[in-house]
């Protein structure tokens, strides 16, 4: 029962509420930034505009072009929307209510799981581009796959760095891939963006966060890295031929991807549901404490989404060679260097007591903590 409630909350809030909310916020904010007013006719402050959009999308004619690969053409939007939604399930969106931890599935390899399902999303874009039987779509799909594969590397390496930060605290003997454990360590010691309680790690945390953020922008095909769908060159990239609800699914997939990335950033770097100064109201098992922790988490996620919007309407698009240069020649080496730096600092600052194997503890070589609930 509780599981169903949690799944319902994740789907209803993170997918079906945050996405349209994000759309309307983005449209209004971009309008304000450009000196316009934006959509303000449907509902109070134009808040029901996404609803009107959805109705319009549903009633539009659904066209499948001649010569399209019908199966892949239909499959592509699903492949874009489902993986990011799956990635949401391991993210702890709050502390706990009673004994129920506010996380749909507690996987001991949660980080790996999220990374792997997010990696699947690239198939959706590649399929969409290929199945459309259109040159521009194909180019968009190609660009999308090349870009996402390149930046996934930097993303993964910055995650390795953050995992090592949370493992490298002097009091800890083992690393963990469990998002909930990562958040709990941040509650105990401090946020990973500031080095997870070890002030020597501060630059590592900051660099890791910036690397993660830039790679996340590229992963989500957001400006300044929206080359796969840039309107000026490719008409619309991989979704040129899509219409009606299939196009809406592409859009939703994009926005859900942003939400997942923000949630991951919050979990890995910004302390998940914790908030310094408020932690004594958040750590308990009372129901209102649980709700408050959910509120804190959502606030963080929404703030990051807000930054996404500002970045989109500020920075111009990179050229493709610049994108690849940045990815392979700057971000990947920097991420590797960051991992090295974290490792060196971690080893140097580890206290002898923590380094010595404790009786009963598992050998420190075993990085993955068991999936104990």
């Amino acid at each position, binding site marked *: 029962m509780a599981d169903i409630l949690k799944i319902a909350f994740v789907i209803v809030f993170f997918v079906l509420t945050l996405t349209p909310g994000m759309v309307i916020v983005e449209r209004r*904010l971009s309008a*304000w*930034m*450009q*000196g*316009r*007013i934006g959509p*303000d006719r449907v509902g109070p402050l134009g808040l029901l505009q996404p609803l009107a959009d959805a109705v319009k999308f549903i009633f539009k004619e659904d066209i499948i072009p001649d010569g399209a690969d019908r199966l892949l053409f239909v499959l592509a939007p699903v492949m874009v929307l489902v993986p990011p939604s799956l990635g949401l399930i391991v993210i702890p969106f709050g502390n706990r209510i009673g004994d129920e931890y506010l996380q749909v599935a507690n996987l001991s390899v949660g980080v790996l799981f999220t990374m792997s399902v997010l990696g699947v999303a690239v198939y959706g874009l590649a399929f969409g581009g290929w199945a459309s039987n259109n040159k521009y779509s194909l180019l968009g799909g190609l660009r999308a796959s090349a870009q996402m594969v390149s930046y996934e590397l930097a993303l993964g390496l910055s995650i390795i760095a953050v995992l090592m930060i949370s493992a490298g605290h002097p009091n800890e003997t083992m690393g963990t891939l469990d998002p909930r454990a990562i958040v709990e360590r941040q509650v105990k010691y401090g946020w990973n963006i500031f080095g997870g309680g070890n002030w020597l790690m501060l630059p590592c945390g900051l660099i890791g966060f*910036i690397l993660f953020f830039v790679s996340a922008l590229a992963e989500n095909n957001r400006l300044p890295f929206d080359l796969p769908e840039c309107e000026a060159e490719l008409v619309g990239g991989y979704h040129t031929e899509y219409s009606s609800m299939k196009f809406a699914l592409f859009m939703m997939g994009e926005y859900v991807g942003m939400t997942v990335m923000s949630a991951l950033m919050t979990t890995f770097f910004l302390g998940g549901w914790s908030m310094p100064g408020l932690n004594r109201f958040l750590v308990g098992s009372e129901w209102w404490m649980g709700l408050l922790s959910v509120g804190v988490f959502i606030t963080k996620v929404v703030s990051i989404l807000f*930054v996404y919007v*500002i*970045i989109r*309407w*500020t*920075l111009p698009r990179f050229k493709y060679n610049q994108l690849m240069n940045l990815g392979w020649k700057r971000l990947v080496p920097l991420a590797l260097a960051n991992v090295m730096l974290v490792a060196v600092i971690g080893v140097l600052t580890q206290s002898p007591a923590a380094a010595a194997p404790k009786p009963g503890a598992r050998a420190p070589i075993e990085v993955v903590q068991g999936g104990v609930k």
Partner: protein
Amino acid sequence: MTLGMTLKKAWLKLAIKLYIPAALNGMRYTLGRVFRKKATLSYPEEVHVPRKGYRGEHRLKKDEVGRMKCVACLMCQTACPAECIQIIGAPSPWPDREKIPVVFNIDMLKCIYCGMCEEACPCDAIELTPTFTKVCTTREEKIYDINKLLSR
């Protein structure tokens, strides 16, 4: 060059290379734009009020006893670069002038609203008003005759 200047130069070079300070500055600017006054008007509720001296559709003026000021001298017709004014004169019923117009048509669709007719008029009889939103459904409606021009 002092050490301080060299350091500053090196720092600036690094900041440009890093791209992040410039990006943050740009984001601050973009965010500042959010709170500025919007250029768009919500049209049916808010109507644009033209500035003083705006050149909209014409009108013909009347003098203090209610007679039209125009004397059909054809100066405006001559001055008009778009040739949108058509005047046919007739002998005047009043002793202070020789002619008055019986036909005074302005084709508002040909008019370029340059204001040359207003400049050319020797007796200050024609004027451009700030009106710019008059709608019509046929081209003929947009050719304003003397009655319409006088009544505005």
